[in-house]
């Protein structure tokens, strides 16, 4: 077993969101994260976390203003583990339809759409989706073994807060799904080394910490 504290986990600081919780969540996994907006540090990370809450366009502007889009894309090409959280997950996709169409990082094909307030059957649902909701394997997803969900049990609950959801172009990129407003949507997106969680693992108690632990130490 390697010395966990030497794992070079980098959390991207681009002026959006509560970094303290993500930092603290990584720290309890035995790792001292680097919080930075420096392109070189991002490029040289062993593992990279893109957190974020708020509007998609603000998030992409934050990354663009700090000239971080290319370094993130370069990092991902190296095949090292990448984790987007909430807005950080949504930005993995090609584009979002939140307040007009905005371009994303395009790391996994697909788009970001608003959660409908009504289901097809006429049920009325509150937006944002706030709260603890259980997750399960996607329709066409691979086994959770050797993924960030290895420590997660089917139907474990995690904490969501969002008004938009991601729709991957390829169904097999939905590693876990979640049901809200009468429809299934992607809770964890994955393609090879790239992961994204719609929920907040750093706010999902021991289940969430288990996910961060696997990402930081095992993946």
């Amino acid at each position: 077993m390697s010395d966990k504290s030497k794992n070079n986990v980098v959390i991207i600081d681009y002026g959006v969101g509560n970094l303290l919780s993500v930092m603290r969540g990584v720290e309890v996994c035995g790792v001292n994260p680097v919080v930075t907006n420096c392109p070189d540090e991002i490029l040289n990370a062993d593992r990279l976390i893109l957190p974020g809450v708020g509007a998609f366009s603000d998030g992409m502007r934050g990354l663009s203003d700090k000239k971080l889009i290319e370094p993130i894309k370069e990092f991902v090409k190296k095949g090292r583990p990448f984790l987007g959280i909430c807005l950080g997950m949504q930005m993995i996709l090609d584009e979002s339809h939140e307040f007009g169409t905005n371009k994303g990082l395009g790391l996994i094909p697909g788009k970001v759409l608003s959660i409908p307030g009504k289901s097809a059957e006429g049920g009325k649902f509150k937006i944002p989706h706030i709260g603890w909701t259980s997750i399960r394997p996607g329709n066409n997803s691979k086994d959770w073994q050797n993924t960030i969900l290895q420590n997660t049990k089917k139907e474990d609950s995690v904490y969501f807060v969002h008004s938009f959801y991601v729709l991957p172009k390829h169904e097999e990129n939905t590693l876990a799904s979640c049901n809200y407003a009468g429809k299934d949507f992607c809770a964890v997106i994955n393609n090879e080394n790239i992961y994204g969680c719609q929920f907040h693992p750093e706010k999902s108690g021991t289940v969430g910490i288990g996910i961060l632990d696997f990402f930081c130490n095992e993946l």
Partner: protein
Amino acid sequence: MGRIGKAIKGELNLSKIRLIARLDIKGPNLIKSIRFEGLRVLGNPQEFAQKYYEEGIDEILYVDTVATLYERVGIHELVKKTAQNVFIPITVAGGIRSVQDVDDLLRSGADKIAINTAAVKNPDLISQISKKFGSQCMVLSIEACKQPDGRWEAYTDNGREHSNLEVVEWAMKAEKLGAGEILLTSVDFDGTLKGFDYDLIKLVSENVSIPVIASGGFGDEDDFKKVVEDYCADAVAVGSALHYGKFTVKSLKDKLRAKGLNVR
């Protein structure tokens, strides 16, 4: 119809009803009053929050009860210490008056902030906060007091001052301005353990499309079931019943599950 997680027949919905521990703070202490008056000092709020987290509470809500009076946010240190080892959402209320106040609290480890008095004085603050940090972070706190004419008025300054705002109209306006959630506290029922101001909760919840947290009056599992299933609460805040040890988080959730409620 319409509360979060209440699927209509044939629909699957796996969202759990949130149980939120509400901790009222004065200076270094957890306190509890009845109908916002008189108070008992109960102990160190961080220790209570940590215990509730370990027992499985879904969220923590800190309400600084004197911050508005003293015109400053006074619980950054408490939030910072709590966020070290509590990995669930933390909401902070009390004395928040500006975008800068919100930024400071989020940097201390808060996930959401709840605003009452400053939003009443300057409703545009709701828009500013929701634009800058996202609506998920902007909780409107309403302290509702029933009036002789049967309507509810929103009170400010920890339940002391009139605002002349009718609660439902205020809630609807705040939603338009960008509030992402409503913390709806009944001043009349707070701390009584006698059940919620049910009609108030239902009236607001049915007139907005954002989640409504029922606060003030929780006494037992039957109150919880009633306010969620019949009066459209999306989440429930519990104070006295936990602080005084009437329930532990676990014993309460066990009772809720036994009543058929979908809790974590």
